[in-house]
């Protein structure tokens, strides 16, 4: 089963690479057809990617999201899923062009991690933990899309209205709404992540909140996105400032995910 998982993973990795090239070709050659093909490819890879996770879960006999490799694979999966939903829902192929390098980066990071299936330490064997990490990956995926949208928003202000970009990137007002949609999805799931994490920590360690660096950084991320939500409500601020907060928010997400384990000590360090 592990071998099958490895083969599928490699195919998915190559698939993401081709998808990224195709998306680049779409924006460089300005051929819409390429974007359509990239989207179909993305749907296909998503199926493969899902199979990788299912196989992993079956061979480990648990939820496949508990070490750096598994979490990175899941994160890329969520990003692929959420971006695909947004591309289709808002007919927005340029989003794919901006999102695919990010997915490729995360899946590339996953490919560098150890794929060994390890048994879990007792405190990690909890259904709350399964909820905790699955909500986290959806939240992270949504914030990833919000980050890409914020970049597009900031990029848009530098381009001419009438050219290729002007045609393919929605008006700022609409872009802001779409970004808001992805931040709200992320915020909802981040709140769920923090809540389920607190319930789990209470059961496992007897303390639902202990200001562990990972907890603290998830709170920082949560507050940054709350600032984004409030900034949006203020007329004069709408747009650029909020977009910058979506960027800072995602930097916090990545720091919470990788940086905290690397730079700061805490009980989450095994994750």
């Amino acid at each position: 089963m592990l071998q099958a998982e490895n083969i599928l993973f490699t195919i998915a990795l190559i698939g993401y690479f081709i998808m990224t090239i195709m998306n680049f070709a779409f924006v460089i050659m300005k051929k819409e057809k390429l974007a359509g093909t990239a989207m179909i490819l993305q749907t296909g890879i998503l199926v493969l990617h899902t199979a990788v996770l299912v196989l992993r879960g079956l061979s480990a006999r648990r939820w496949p999201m508990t070490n750096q490799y598994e979490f990175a694979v899941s994160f890329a999966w969520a990003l692929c899923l959420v971006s695909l939903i947004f591309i289709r829902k808002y007919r927005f192929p340029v989003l794919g062009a901006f999102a695919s390098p990010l997915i490729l980066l995360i899946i590339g990071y996953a490919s560098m991690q150890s794929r060994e299936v390890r048994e879990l330490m007792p405190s990690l064997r909890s259904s709350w933990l399964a909820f905790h990490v699955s909500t986290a990956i959806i939240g992270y995926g949504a914030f990833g899309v919000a980050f890409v949208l914020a970049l597009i928003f900031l990029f848009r202000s530098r381009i001419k209205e009438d050219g290729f970009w002007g045609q393919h990137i929605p008006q700022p007002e609409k872009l802001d709404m779409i970004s808001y949609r992805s931040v709200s999805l992320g915020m909802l799931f981040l709140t769920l992540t923090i809540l389920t994490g607190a319930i789990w920590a209470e059961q496992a360690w007897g303390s639902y909140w202990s200001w562990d660096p990972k907890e603290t950084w998830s709170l920082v991320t949560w507050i940054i996105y709350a600032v984004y939500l409030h900034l949006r409500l203020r007329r004069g601020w709408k747009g650029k400032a909020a977009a910058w907060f979506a960027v800072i928010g995602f930097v916090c997400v990545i720091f919470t995910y990788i940086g905290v384990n690397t730079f700061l000590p805490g009980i989450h360090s095994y994750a």
Partner: protein
Amino acid sequence: MPFAIALLVLLAAACAFSSTVTQGQSYEYYNAQYGERTAGLILALRLDDAFHSWWFIGLSAALCLNLLCCNLIRLPLLLKRSRAFANPESFISSGSGVTEACGSEPEKLLKALGMPDAKEMKTADGRRILFSVRNRPGLWGAWVCHLGILLLILGFALGQMTGKQFTVYGLPGQTKPLGDTGLLVTVNDFQAEVREDGSAEQFTAYLIAEDPAADTRESASVSVNAPASMYGYKFFQNSYGWGADIRITKDGQPLQTEAVCAGDFLAVKDKPELVIYFQAFYPDYVLIEGSGPSSQSMLPKNPAYLYRVYYQNQLLGMNALQGNEELTIDEYTVVFENPRYYTLLAVKRDHFTWLVLIGGIITLAGLVLAFYLCPTAVCAVEEKNGIWRVRAKSSKGGVLFRETFEKAAEESGFSMKGENEFASG
């Protein structure tokens, strides 16, 4: 609200900055890490316990006060807005934030918008009105969310102020006091289920709590992720460590045998100035050159005990004893034996955890209301010439709602009217 935003940014910055300073250490630690001046600054600003410092609590309190005031001020406004939202009169009179189209079959447009259940009414001058409202509770999303946050912080603060928390550790057979509660906790047994590869699957402690004053006792078993309650305290299997029996003989005669956890001290019975410190235990001992002693696995295949001996607080010596090796200090002989796990329990009483949970759930509900219930109202008024003027208002749908409306209007044979301003939030 600008003040609220500033407070939120400050709070995030405070949390982020504090997480870079290791919490709960002594001056010596910070001095060694950062130097004298920074260490002094860390202690003066209470950065060593940042999340309980006056400035952090002050900042959180200011945020709560702001939230409370904001919610109190907004309550009557929201009630008014909520009522107005469902009132066609106010709809007709207000022009801003409204999208408008004209056509002949309003039912069709309402259906296309997914709002077919319209109420039929009449204007003062007798014209027909079709009015439909959807997702009105969505107006309350932010308010409910703020209420949830307030309850959550309140529950957390009350828990911190009134709750009690202890750590107790013990080897099977040991009895320890539970902080200042007067209760005693005995570890009857402590079992580790170990997998084939030597890693742990589960730990279970069998405990007895006793109230000597009332002469009562309660018992429970506690596993990782499965806490239990005794005497109103919740017991959690938090961690574990190694311990062993230290057997001391004097001139060949048994003197004392005591169970000691690694990290603990044992004073010799008839010479309390002589103290043995059980520094660390290595179940599967190896000495790696350059990096010192370590353990190859969790199984006690080659046990070694790292100790120090003090006499009148002066270090006499330190070393590692392997297996049944003996340590001789004058007439005393010391042996470490029977290594086994001790359990480390977190014990706590917090009467407000439920409030935190309720606060969390309300916050979540508020977010769902705010994000996913988009309050929308549509009002179709029949003009004199038989043409229907359909006006729609969406509190948060913004440009996306306008697009939906335009599409629905087009499908239903309506033409859009004028350049209106659109609401977005």
